[in-house]
């Protein structure tokens, strides 16, 4: 299982890449493995307000439907249109081409939005869950 060190994570198995005031969001390698083949992702609309911890989309795999929670507060600026054509990108490249959406953060003063986990913390969390 890969957990890139430069990213932040949530207990809901999502990752966040911070680039200035923009946060890119996706689901982790651990999540895509647990879900199985992803067949459809329902995204928030561009321009929609999202709130940390609130559902803003769905990932549907062959096996199940899971909510996507926004990891941060802000406004959706972009969604990954490629996913609509090929939802399998979420499985094949969860941290790259399989990103889901981008959010313009409300708070850009602090360095890291509250509640996010480091790679080390997230790895520990998934290990715990596996035991």
């Amino acid at each position, binding site marked *: 299982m890969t957990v890139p060190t430069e990213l932040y994570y949530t207990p809901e198995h999502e990752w966040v890449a911070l680039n200035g005031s923009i946060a890119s969001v996706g689901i982790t390698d651990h999540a895509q493995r647990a879900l199985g*083949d992803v067949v459809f992702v*329902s995204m928030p609309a561009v321009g929609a307000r999202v709130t940390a911890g609130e559902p803003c989309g769905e990932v*549907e795999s*062959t096996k199940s439907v899971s909510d996507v929670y926004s990891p941060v507060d802000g406004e959706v600026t972009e969604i990954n249109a490629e996913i609509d054509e090929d939802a*399998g990108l979420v499985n094949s490249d969860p941290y790259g081409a399989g990103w889901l959406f981008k959010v313009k953060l409300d708070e850009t003063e602090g360095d890291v939005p509250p509640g996010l986990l480091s790679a080390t913390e997230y790895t520990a969390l998934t290990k715990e869950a596996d035991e």
Partner: protein
Amino acid sequence: MTDTAPATAGSMPAPRRTPLTSMHEQLGASLTDFAGWLMPLRYGSETAEHNAVRTAAGLFDLSHMGELSVTGPGAAAALDYALTGQPSALQPGRARYTMISADDGGVLDDLIVYRLAGEEFLVVANAANTAVVGAALAERAAAFDAEVADRTDDYALIALQGPRAAAILAPLTSTDLAGVKYYASYPAQVAGRDVLLARTGYTGEDGFEIFAAPRDAEHLWMELSKAGAGDGLIPAGLAARDTLRLEAGMPLYGNELTSDMTPFDAGLGRVVKLDKPGGFVGRAALADRAGQPPQRQLVGLTLQSRRIPRHGYQVLWHGRPAGTVTSGAASPTLGIRIAMAYISPDVAQATSAAGSAGLAVDIRGNAEPARLVELPFYRRRS
């Protein structure tokens, strides 16, 4: 000394391992507890595994399936009494799909019965139902000169399924596979090991099920994998098995079949031999049911929706509840969503006469338009 019992109340026993579980672990499979067994859900992508079975071949561990032997001079008569079908009419070496009903006609399980010899039958049951079926068979056979034994631990079961199955198997056996007919079984040698070789399956493809001694399971798995590597054979898990059987329109016990339903509900009345000589358990209820108009009908639905219609979702007819989805999937072969559902016969009739406009599945609050189609969704070219 006072000893405080550990808090084990309510905890589940560890799932049972098949003779191939270590092999699956080595292959990096995602394992899941299925009916009390630790089984491979998938090895990599379940969609790739599904497609391999449709276009080349897949290798499945089915050792969780229950094997019950029924032997003795009264074995054939005992099974005629215990099951809805007529195993006494089978020639040795032949097999038949059948069911076991309760007194009220409800389906306890769907089964394959192999007649291995005149007085020797092997009944293959679903893993979740093996204990129930074993107990029912023992009780029903008590008045006959027949013995029922649970032989599940004596068999590993490997399925080789797909259009390339025969070509992959042929170099590993001296048996002439062209002579092994569909639903036939023969004692054979595969990769130097004695097995029972059956031309059966649950995928809608040609293929074989190989009953072997547990100690031979890993050897057979490796030899088959090696033999098929050039043909595109890959191991396939339960996730692929489920979408394969669904495309092929085959019922799954617990979804399309339950103890609340008779074989007639599932459109499988043909497995009920009401006119076989002698009575059988459930006969009165099933005879009664056979003469009545159906209360529900098992149908196939296709949807253009991106979302998947899943087990338990409601079927709507002009916005009103008209039935329930029993199984649904994103069909890898057809590229659309498919489902089997029980709907009211009125709606089934109306839609087949006037088209499917008005038919929908409630997918988490969205009425997604559905089309009624004939089962199966997929039929292989023969």
